[in-house]
């Protein structure tokens, strides 16, 4: 992140943008369009949520020519005061989230200003912003960025009466391409709707097809609280990094002030165990000393990190969202308890397995395959699936064990929630495969997988039973007729009686099987082991 600031100083903003396109999410014609949609939609959702308004978002992509589109995003948020329009949309790296230790959507890309910049570079045209606070006055302007000074440039300002609340933003984009499929804005919007069940999203794609994702829950998610890093799992490198920028005057106070769950008693305890004096300046910490602190921390217990800094989607919300959009026959939703990975960063893994209905990825009329949807802080990750911890965790699960095959019509939704997402690569589209992260995702998947597996085997048994019942019915008439003939009795009487006997037996087996199912609380050995290790490792009171 320091590189970005440096680059910013050395080059003009336009050059910087061009040089860092890859990193900013504008690599490739298809991805660039999706990134632009992402930036505006994220902005819109954040604006609504921060104001406590249930989002109602409108997204439209119009094709204007070859590789030339117009993107329109409108929200029902509080609107932006006239004075702040420029700052909000026309200033790159303003209000940067890089130094905030808080769960947020906008860790990817560089925000709405990036789209304004991209639009300007590719079309030479400004972006149109229309906003109102809902007071009967609408403000409109054309916005661009002065590339020399990195300041917003506002033209053609207008104010007129009208009914509106929120922001409507329109940018033209060139050198981008709309193409259906996994990387399309269509898919991005669909997945965004899935993990934001409190939002209503109306989307019109370049083929003029309108899709409305209705709101599934009427409750806004809680706003995450900012927090500090947790000592457990900090690396020497992390510690030195934090020490170099702290305002605390001694190492001891640095530990207490800059980290969560480090009381002065705990700091004292650390001070007693290390071989050097912790009253020195944090900036003077040597590598060896930092290493020593880390070692001591590893042997001590700390209270687990506060979890109110993390706001997962929530079981109920996910359930409703999955029902709303995938209309599954069966679903299993798992929310793991909070865990931490290297650097003391708390995170929560959520998994939804959705089976049947619209679940799975349709390959042809008859065939479908498992669909994997990755999210980080509710933001869909569409690209770089191969390098992602989520993908690796999914691949490490033995799905066969749960009667799940490659062609099972199933969607896997995984949301990684954290104050800091350890992205790999420049695109910020995949999560680093930290051991703890892999473990948590795998556990959640196994838990959900087992639930689905139980359902599937029950369903299979039911199908089998029904097939058998049908078979019995098929053979009853001839059997009854022949026995009646031999015994000199009425075939109808025998037929009815036989049916009754078969039905009774059928019900009996069904009862037995249900009982068996309930008694069978088989826990995967592997899962048990991982769980036990987790308990052992995390003995933080």
């Amino acid at each position, binding site marked *: 992140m320091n590189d970005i600031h440096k680059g910013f100083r050395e080059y003009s903003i336009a050059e910087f943008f061009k040089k860092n396109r890859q990193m900013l999410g504008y690599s490739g014609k298809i991805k660039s369009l999706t990134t632009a949609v992402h930036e505006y939609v994220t902005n819109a959702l954040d604006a609504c949520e921060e104001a406590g308004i249930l989002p109602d978002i409108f997204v439209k992509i119009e094709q204007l020519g070859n590789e030339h589109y117009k993107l329109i995003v409108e929200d029902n948020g509080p609107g932006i005061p006239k004075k702040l329009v420029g700052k909000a949309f026309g200033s790159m790296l303003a209000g940067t989230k890089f130094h905030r230790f808080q769960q947020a959507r906008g860790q990817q890309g560089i925000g709405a200003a990036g789209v304004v910049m991209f639009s300007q570079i590719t079309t030479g045209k400004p972006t149109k912003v229309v906003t109102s606070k809902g007071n009967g006055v609408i403000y409109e302007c054309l916005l661009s960025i002065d590339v020399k000074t990195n300041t917003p440039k506002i033209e053609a300002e207008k104010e007129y009466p009208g009914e509106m609340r929120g922001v409507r933003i329109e940018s033209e984009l060139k050198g981008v391409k709309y193409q259906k499929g996994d990387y399309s804005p269509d898919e991005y919007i669909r997945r965004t709707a899935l993990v934001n069940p409190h939002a209503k999203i109306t989307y019109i794609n370049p083929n003029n097809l309108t899709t409305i994702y209705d709101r599934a829950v009427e409750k806004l998610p809680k706003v995450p609280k900012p927090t500090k890093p947790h000592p457990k799992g900090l690396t020497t490198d992390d510690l030195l990094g934090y020490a170099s920028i702290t305002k605390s005057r001694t190492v001891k106070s640095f530990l207490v002030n800059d980290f969560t769950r480090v009381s002065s008693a705990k700091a004292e305890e650390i001070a007693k165990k290390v071989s050097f004096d912790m009253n020195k300046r944090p900036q003077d910490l040597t590598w060896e000393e930092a290493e020593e602190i880390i070692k001591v921390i590893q042997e001590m217990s700390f209270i687990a990190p506060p979890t109110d800094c993390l706001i997962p989607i929530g079981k109920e919300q996910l359930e409703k969202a999955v029902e709303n959009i995938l209309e599954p026959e069966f679903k299993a939703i798992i929310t793991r308890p909070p865990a931490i990975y290297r650097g003391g960063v708390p995170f929560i893994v959520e998994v939804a397995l959705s089976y049947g209905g619209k679940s799975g990825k349709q390959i042809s009329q008859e065939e479908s395959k498992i669909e994997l949807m990755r999210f980080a802080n509710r933001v869909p990750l569409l690209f770089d699936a191969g390098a992602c911890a989520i993908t690796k965790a999914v691949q490490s699960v033995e799905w066969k064990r749960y009667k799940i095959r490659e062609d099972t019509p199933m969607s896997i939704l995984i949301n990684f929630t954290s104050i800091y997402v350890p992205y790999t690569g420049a695109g910020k589209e995949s999560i680093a495969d930290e051991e703890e992260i892999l473990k948590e995702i795998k556990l959640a998947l196994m838990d959900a997988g087992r639930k689905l597996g139980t359902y599937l085997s029950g369903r299979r048994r039911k199908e089998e039973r029904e097939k058998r019942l049908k*078979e019995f019915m098929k*053979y009853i008439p001839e059997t009854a*007729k022949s026995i*009646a003939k031999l015994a000199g009795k009425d075939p109808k009487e025998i037929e009815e*009686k036989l049916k009754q006997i078969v039905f009774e037996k059928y019900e009996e087996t069904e009862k037995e099987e249900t009982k068996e199912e309930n008694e069978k609380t088989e826990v995967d050995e592997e899962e048990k082991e991982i769980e036990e290790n987790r308990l052992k490792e995390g003995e933080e009171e």
Partner: protein
Amino acid sequence: MKGVESDKIALKRLKEFGQSLYEQIKNNKPPSFKMPTRTKANIDFIEGDRRLKLGERMSTRSFLNYSHTRKFMQSVMVAAACEDYIKSGRTVGKRELYYNLKHSLPNSKQNTFEDDTESGAVLNDLEASLNVLREQFHVIAKGRGSIYGDLDLRQAGDEFSCKGLGRGGWVIPGYTEDVEFLNHNAEFILAIENDAMMGRLIEEKVWKKLNCLLVTGEGMFPRGVRRFIKRMHEELKLPVIAFVDGDPWGFYIYSVLKYGSIQLAHLSDRYAVPDAKYVGMTMDDIDEYGLQNVTEKLKDVDKKKIKEEMEYPWFKHSKEWMNQLKKMLEKGVRLEQQALANKSLSFVAEKYLPEKIEAGKFLP
């Protein structure tokens, strides 16, 4: 057994069968019936007795057992049909029975019977379960196999001789209970596996040279042929000598002739000829008659069958037979009857059979 009496017994058993099933259904019980278990595990082979005997074990066929349901329906269908045949005084062939009962099942692509092995199998089950012969059910097997030799017979009012029939013989029908023996001039019965060999022996007038009756089953001896051999053996006091291929299949044909089969173990008394002897082909013939060039290599199925047979008690307890099976595995070859033609066409008639039979070179 006179026809009328036999019919009465069969009808009575069928009625009891139907009533028992009806009572079970009436009492809310899944209908089922028992039959002797006809598997190798339930076969006793008593050395002194020298035939296959069914053990005590019984199997139950229940309508509510998913794997039995279809067969259960087929069993009662065949039973009801047989009742019809008996009452109307008609007799049907095995294949007729199949066509008579075959029709489609409701809401299904399946038929009541898909082929005559299905109807044949449940007919065997009913025979065993009700202790009634299929002939008593008025179902007879298609005739297969023939007899040639100096023997006069009467059947259905016709009198005829089994010699002077050109190259063929008299085709032995599936039902032979009504055949009367008139005159005969023979010292033994030669039971031949292969009908081409039968033709060779007729042409070479072996029946005259060796003074015997030639019988073939064209492969495995069918029930009609076995019953007819058994009757000739008992009523005409003629010893039986088997002449089959020197391979596990020939050995098995011989063992069925001698001891009975697993499927029909409950009827061994009617079919088995425990005194039967085996003249050839044997593994020793290969060296004895210089037939090394006309052996055939064993296939995997042959080897599998040999290993199976080594576990059959009637082979297992016989030193001579185990010796034969072991030799066959060691040499890895089989020896067909017709391999003898390698010496000359008349070799079998002029040298092989006369020599071996006169010297009494038999396997037990």
